[in-house]
């Protein structure tokens, strides 16, 4: 297979719905074996991108490839896809439903049934296997759906907002499963609007705002590159020393002051000034910026709603 090392590759992809542009000139790659997060506020185009990767939507311009070629049925079958909108056959018993989902992806019925049993046990749903899907709680249904996604041992997991709707305990369970798959070499692409989730899990992040890509990098490199930018300080006494040509502006975060530095400025000069001043410095700390802060810095404050959660107006990504 000539997949040039990428599980997923988008080149110059644009998708419009009527007058609304959902995705604009989008380039994006998911190298094999990585965990990649697709981040952005609601309505930024994440789901549209995922649906194009899954061949559900077709790009107006540009090219989408899955394992190095068009996303046809054969290649899509190697993907475990968890859509954003969750659906099950309501009247079907859980174990039968899972066996069916495995079967249509080429797993034999007996093997599918066996694997489903193992997964139901792992997620604490064994006693529900003969219940109808509609009798399960939302969270349980979501777990069942996740099991359906992985039963055929996919090479690539595409999870659209997998954490939403799960309680913190189950979020941790899911996180652990994703890590397991990563350890086995499975490529994972997931979308989320929860930055802290991505921060814990991703090796690579791609940020979208307003249908456009604003950032696409390895998380480690990204953080290293952004690290020099912010200094958290706590002190007693006069505050004149924190102002200077290096500091762009100051924000108060959790009782500490965050000094946001100008590009290329050296925090050392500020520290020197502080030591010489009358102030008593309690903390001088190069802060690793959160993904949220990085996102805001790159996408602009407009993209961020009041709750600190990025929210965007616009049509949903259907």
């Amino acid at each position, binding site marked *: 297979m000539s997949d040039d090392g990428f599980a997923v590759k988008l080149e110059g992809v644009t998708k419009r719905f009527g007058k609304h542009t959902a995705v604009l000139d989008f380039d994006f790659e998911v190298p094999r074996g990585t965990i990649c997060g697709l981040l952005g506020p609601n309505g930024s185009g994440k789901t549209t991108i995922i649906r194009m990767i*899954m*061949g*559900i*939507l077709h790009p107006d311009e540009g090219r989408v490839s899955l394992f190095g070629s068009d996303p046809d*049925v054969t290649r*899509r*079958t190697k*993907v475990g*896809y968890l*859509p954003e*909108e*969750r*659906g*099950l*056959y*309501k*009247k*079907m018993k859980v174990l*039968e439903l899972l066996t*069916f*989902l495995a*079967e*249509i*992806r*080429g797993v034999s019925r007996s093997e599918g049934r066996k694997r489903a049993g193992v997964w139901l046990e792992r997620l604490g749903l064994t006693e529900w296997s003969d219940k109808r899907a509609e009798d399960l709680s939302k969270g349980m249904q979501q777990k069942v*759906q996740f099991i*359906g*996604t992985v039963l055929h041992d996919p090479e690539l997991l595409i999870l659209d907002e997998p954490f939403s709707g799960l309680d913190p305990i189950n979020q941790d369970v899911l996180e652990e499963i994703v890590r397991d798959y990563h350890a086995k070499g499975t490529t994972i692409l997931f979308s989320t609007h929860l930055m802290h989730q991505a921060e814990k899990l991703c090796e690579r992040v791609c940020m979208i705002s307003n249908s456009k890509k604003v950032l696409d990098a390895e998380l480690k490199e990204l953080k290293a590159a952004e690290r020099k930018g912010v200094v958290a300080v706590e002190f007693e006494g006069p505050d004149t020393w924190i102002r200077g040509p290096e500091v762009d502006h100051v924000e108060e975060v959790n009782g500490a002051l965050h000094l946001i530095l100008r590009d290329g400025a050296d925090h050392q000069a500020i520290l020197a000034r502080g030591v010489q001043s009358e102030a008593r410095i309690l903390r001088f700390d190069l802060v690793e910026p959160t993904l949220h802060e990085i996102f805001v810095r790159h996408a602009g404050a407009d993209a961020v709603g009041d709750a600190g959660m990025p929210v965007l107006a616009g049509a949903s990504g*259907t």
Partner: protein
Amino acid sequence: MWHNVWAVIRREYLQRVRSKWFIMVTLLAPIIMIAMIVIPTFIAARSDRSDRDLLIVDGSGVLYERLASDFEASGYTVAEEPWTVDVVTDLRQQASDGEIGGFLVLDDLTLETGEAVLYVNERPSLIRRMTLRSAIASAALEYQLEQQGLDAGAMLAGGELRVEMLVDEGSDTDDPQFFVAYMGTMFLYMVILIYAVSVMRATLEEKTSRIVEVIVSSMKPWHLMLGKILGVGAVSLTQIAVWLSMGALAVGAGIPMLIAARPELANLDTVVAVLPGLWLLILFVGLFLFGFFMYSGLYAAVGAMCSTDEEAQQAQFPVMMFLIIPILFVLQAIQEPLTPLVTWLSLFPLFSPVLMWARVAGGGVPGWQIGLSFVLMGATVIGVAWLAGRIYKVGILMAGKKPSLPELWRWVREA
């Protein structure tokens, strides 16, 4: 990728066949049907029994012999009371004492006008009066005709019209069987509609629950549609097979047993006499299958292009019209199966299941027309599959409002 289609068929079939609703309808419907035929016969036979003894006073002297056999065939036990001057007064007394139920008096006037008097304590049923009245009238008429030297039996049997065909065209079946033709048409219409609508609902459910996104990620939409239609089709055949075999069992074993046990149910034999033969049953199943494949494809497309039940209710209407229109011509098709209008209409594939059945069961259709209609329906099944498959492919993953006709056409072209 046929294992996918097979998986869908299997799921669809088992889910439906195992549902309580299916089991109930499949088993109860024929039982209710049989009960509807047997119970009234049973009740009628019972109520007749108390009145089955009939005492006849024959003042004419010629009618009793003729009537006795007729009445006995209708289930009466007859006895003659000789004519005397006081006989009516005596018998009235006996009747009011409860010794006899009632009696029939015939005299010379009966021979001339067919008028007779029935003395009873309880008012007889309309059917009973009709039976007696017509038997008396024809006995009197028969007598008079014989006096004239005519063949009264042949005349009264309704004469005979012998048909000599000048052209070699027409009936492969025998006499028109209105009952079979009409009930069969309604039954065909109903099962095709019910099962085609099932396909639409299933499609809509998959679409609105969004599970279709997961399924279509690993199989072609066309395969999903095919699997659904074949699965539901298999369910419908199962149901029809159960119904037919229960019917066959009832006719073959049940009714003779019932009649043997209760001779008063002999009337049931007439029901058996109008039942369709094997060749008609095969035709019925054939028409159903082709009709189902044509309409379920169309209904699948309707389900795929809608997002809510209400929308689907509206959108299915044009498709349903094609099932309803032929119903308007059913009576005409049964009565005059060879008129050009009915012939052409019945060859139009979407009308064929209903109208061809009405024509064939109703009387006579040349074999080549039946063959042609199956060829045309076959071609339509393929055409519908192509068209519906394309609409389905686009529609099933589309959210939002129902497409307009031009949009629909674009789907078909672009899919």
